[in-house]
């Protein structure tokens, strides 16, 4: 019986692929028959096959969640959303600001701003002091009070 049994696949890298193909049920019938006979006699191969079988059973039991029809659309939207320069802008509702903007626009039309021709405050104060000093100088030198 031993002569019909191939060398243990675990001892040869070439034959290890046979075990993996057997586990995945992709091994041809002739090799499958030969390997099954060896497994019945080889405890190490049985142990390996049992553990591999657990993995395949688990994979068989795993059910993929169904993909929604708009998955691609939502995915693209989220990618675009994250790439946007100012996400907070899109979260603002501009409708309440429209009446305020309209009032401001009317105000600008009705009361256009005049160019600021007033002198700077410092200059104004200096000129006030200068004017007062000139008045004092005048009152010192012009005999305005009637005798």
């Amino acid at each position, binding site marked *: 019986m031993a002569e019909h049994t191939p060398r243990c696949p675990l001892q040869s890298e070439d034959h290890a692929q046979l075990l993996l193909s057997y586990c995945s049920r992709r091994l041809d019938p002739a090799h499958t028959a030969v390997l099954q006979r060896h497994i019945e006699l080889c405890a190490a191969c049985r142990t390996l096959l049992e553990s591999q079988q657990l993995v395949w059973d688990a994979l068989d039991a795993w059910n993929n969640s169904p993909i929604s029809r708009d998955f691609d659309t939502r995915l693209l939207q989220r990618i675009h959303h994250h790439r946007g320069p100012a996400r907070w802008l899109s979260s603002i509702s501009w409708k309440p600001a429209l009446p305020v903007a309209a009032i401001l626009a009317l105000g600008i039309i009705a009361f256009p701003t005049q160019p600021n021709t007033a002198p*700077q405050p*410092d*200059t104004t*104060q*200096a*000129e*006030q*002091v*200068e004017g*007062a*000093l*000139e*008045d*004092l*100088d*005048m*009152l*010192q*030198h*012009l*005999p*305005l*009070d*009637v*005798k």
Partner: protein
Amino acid sequence: MSSAALTLALALATAPYLAAQPRPRPQPSRIEKFRQLSPLQRKKTLDALPPDRRKQAEQRLRELDTMPSAQREALQRRYDAFQNLPERQQDQARRAYREFNALPSDRRDAVHAEMDTLRALPEDDRAARIRSPEHRKRFSARERSILDDFAALLASPSNSDLRF
């Protein structure tokens, strides 16, 4: 009621109120406030003026600082009274003074002497002197304009507050 009658009625109605109004209080003296500033604050304020005007203002401030306190207080009272004159008369005085300062030194002395003379005269005599041929002969048109402005200020009832 016509508009003229309405105006007259309003004038009659408001006249007693206006007559009873006290004269405007003198404005707080800018100069006194300015004098109370620290030298650094004074300099910072006057630095806003062009150099020549700043120099003149600094010179006037120095004169004011070194003035005896009694003289400064008297000047301050005249200044407050001047502030109460109508704006037109204030401008008239300033114009006359600018013209006066622009005169050559000898003519400035002559005009100033004439001002002293006019100030000492009763109003009628003052007017007669200004109209006299001698006055026209002694003073140029520009000088007479200054003296006319000066006489008008002396004759103004508003000027009474300038008497101290």
